């Protein structure tokens, strides 16, 4: 009879946790909609708000939205993956685009790519833990003459050898650190 008289309702505690994951305006938006008819139809609008706030939708955000809107989580992630507009991965400060076009390929882009994944410790489509680099590949950036090339942000680098990669990344890390200092409140 041990469970008989216990309070097994975990909602209050869960709700507290989920509310802590979302910003105030999103919470107010969800709360305002919940009493309305067809409140579940506001899912896409809610996801837009969350992405507008964080730049992407993390699994945690999606779960908090699902729980607070009382919508099955599978449906929420199904919706989030259906629409191109929603991003499920944060983008790093610098997006590294490795050109895997034919020209770069024959000039050893694969080795450069390998070096990048080794140095950053991430795979294609991922973002480094410090949030500074995201690694992606592209078909061609149209600068075949510089092959193999890597685009970091808007800047094109090439021709590159694997040996140059550490120095190259170091430069961007230094820039990111400077920006961080500049952003500090005085």
């Amino acid at each position, binding site marked *: 009879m041990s469970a008989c008289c216990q309070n097994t309702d975990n909602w209050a505690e869960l709700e507290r946790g989920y509310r802590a994951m979302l910003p105030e305006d999103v919470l107010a938006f969800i709360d305002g909609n919940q009493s309305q008819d067809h409140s579940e139809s506001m899912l896409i609008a809610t996801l837009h708000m969350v992405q507008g706030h964080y730049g992407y939708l993390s699994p945690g955000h999606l779960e908090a939205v699902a729980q607070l809107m009382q919508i099955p989580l599978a449906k929420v992630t199904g919706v989030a993956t*259906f629409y*191109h507009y929603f991003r499920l991965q944060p983008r790093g400060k610098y997006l590294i685009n490795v050109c895997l076009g034919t020209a770069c390929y024959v000039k050893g882009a694969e080795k450069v790519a390998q070096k990048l994944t080794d140095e950053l410790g991430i795979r294609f489509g991922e973002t480094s833990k410090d949030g500074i680099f995201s690694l992606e590949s592209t078909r061609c950036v149209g600068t075949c003459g510089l092959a193999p090339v890597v685009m970091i942000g808007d800047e094109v680098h090439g021709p590159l050898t694997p040996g140059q990669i550490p120095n190259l990344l170091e430069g961007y890390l230094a820039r990111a650190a400077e920006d961080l200092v500049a952003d500090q409140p005085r």
Partner: protein
Amino acid sequence: MSLPVRDFYRSMADRVGKNLADQDLGNKILVQVGSATCEHAAGSQAVAEEFVRHIRASGRKDIIIHRTGCTGRCSREPILGVQLPGQIPVKYERVNRDLVHRIFIEHIQGGTPIMKHVLDHSTEVMPEREFLFCEGSRCQRPGGESLRDRFNAMLAARGIEPHQVHVAAASCFGVCSLAGGAPATYVLARPEKVLYRITREEDLADLLAIHVAEGRVVERLRVLEEPIALEFLERYGDVAFFNRQSRIALRNAGVVDPDSLDEYVGFDGFKALAAVLERGEPEWVVNEMTKARLRGRGGGGFLTGTKWGFARKQADTTRFIICNGDEGDPGAFMDRSMLESDPFNIVEGMIIGGFAIGAQKGFFYIRAEYPLAIRRIQHAIDTCRANGLLGTDIMGSGFDFDLEIRLGAGAFVCGEETALIRSIEGERGQPKVRPPYPTDRGLWGHPTVINNVETFANVSAIVRFSGDWYARIGTEKSGGTKVFALAGKVRHTGLVEVPLGTSLSRIVNDIGGGVSGGKQLKAIQTGGPAGGFIPASMQDMEVDFEPLQKAGSIMGSGGMIVLSEDDCMVDIAKFYMAFSQEESCGKCTPCREGTTRILEILERITQGKGVLEDLDKLHRLSRLCQRTSLCGLGRAAPNPVLSSIKHFRAEYLAHIQDKHCPAKKCVALIRYEINAEKCIGCTICDRNCPVECITGARKEAHVIDQAACIKCGNCFDVCKFAAIDRV
């Protein structure tokens, strides 16, 4: 009968009229700056700021900056308009800060327009007067063109130079049916904004003697009815790109301040709604739409009146109306332009539609990629609500109706109405089996009408000028005009609104200025990824739903891509197929799997790995998608493939049998060769080759190692002696 509505409208119109009179715009210098997404991207905001600075520095109080939406003349933006009192307005193209400075000094302060920067270089000098002759190509009125020629001859005989009086051809003004009587030539005189009705040569003589020579209006010939796009023609009439258009849906685009209810009301905005509410007969509205033969502008071409009628007769009285603003076709942007440039007009169209079908609520479904459109529509909704035009008891009529925006999130399929409904419901935007149609069971199971933005943009005009008027502008089957987004290898790109039934050639050549770069026209692609190709040989065909379909294409939302001899039809078909494959929602088998296989075959063919049976397979799969896909998008997805095979089979055969790409576009099927006679051995190709496959001594002809060449084309691009052949 219901006087409160009349009173409401009168007091609103009076208030606006007084406000406008107070501004005394007739005696001020108007500087017009476009403000829509593409204008912003082109730098129109910086231009406007620069102008404000100049005005402030000059201390002048008689210059007004007028913010408008987009005129749809994309490649020339930012466009800036300057209108001095009593003069024909001048439009400048590609304006930047430096040019602002010059315009301010030379034109505004000095009174001399800078002709070098006038939009489309339409004239060398600024004429004092202009006469726009309607061409009336649609109404087959006899002698139209000869009257214009005659007038030109008469002017010449009098020794009047074109810089004094300029005569131009314009499209249908849509006033014939308004003024009644037999068809005639209508002539718009600028800057007086007077419209004449001309039937005989004697009329021209009066025009010359009284209007030109004495500067007085010929009252005998004057038409008091105002063409719907008068304001537009008044401002843009001097540019061929514009005056060959008939603007109804776009009549206020680029004319009205999109955030100003007053301006919209000043251009007879909400007059149609007032008329509808005062009448209080929803059936009448439905009837007018039916008479107008207004067909769905999203691509389906279904008669709007019939659709509204279906929803009206449902037993379920909870009904919804939705404006489909999920414009997803690559290359189409007319919906965005209308939402951004004339939001109140779309709102008015929706309220009228809501009243007609008995809806309590309407939704704007707009793609999230259009933030400015969303902001403007939201502003329009809020303003209407604050002014008794939305919400409860609209205009004192007792009609309750409200609007809400729902955002898309980047899914082409959500343009399909059942998918759109799913998306509004907060689901994955996947279509549902039809029937039941949304007019029976739509949003949350209730009768729902979904119309495209452009459809709603026409509603208020139809109510104001009657369904019959609208029907007469178009063809027998399709009333009114259609907006096209003209792009591709054409000189003037942008939005073009013409009566349905206008020939493709007129749109591409007369309005678009023909193929750019002096190349040959190969085909015109209409209808976006769901459309097809019309070969150059068929360019005289009339643009209407049925003829396009018969030719293997569709109207679609109005994308129109001009293709030249440099374009490979297999490659373009592949491009569209890749789009459809990427955008397939994945629900039904033929579309999900079939488009993938079609794309694979096209890729094979463009890589030179195609075999003859591939053509049969393409055909078989395409027919499968057409016949068995769940929604219209899947059924239309193979259109580019089928129509390109139909009209350009030889190109497919060249790829498959000869392993040759006639347009020299498909990389795998071309090679670069150095013409030894032209090559002087400058080595620039060698130095620019990324794979070092070019060899040769200095000052001697070079050679490309074909086995190593990756066909990047660098050598072809850098050679200064045209010594490299692409074969």
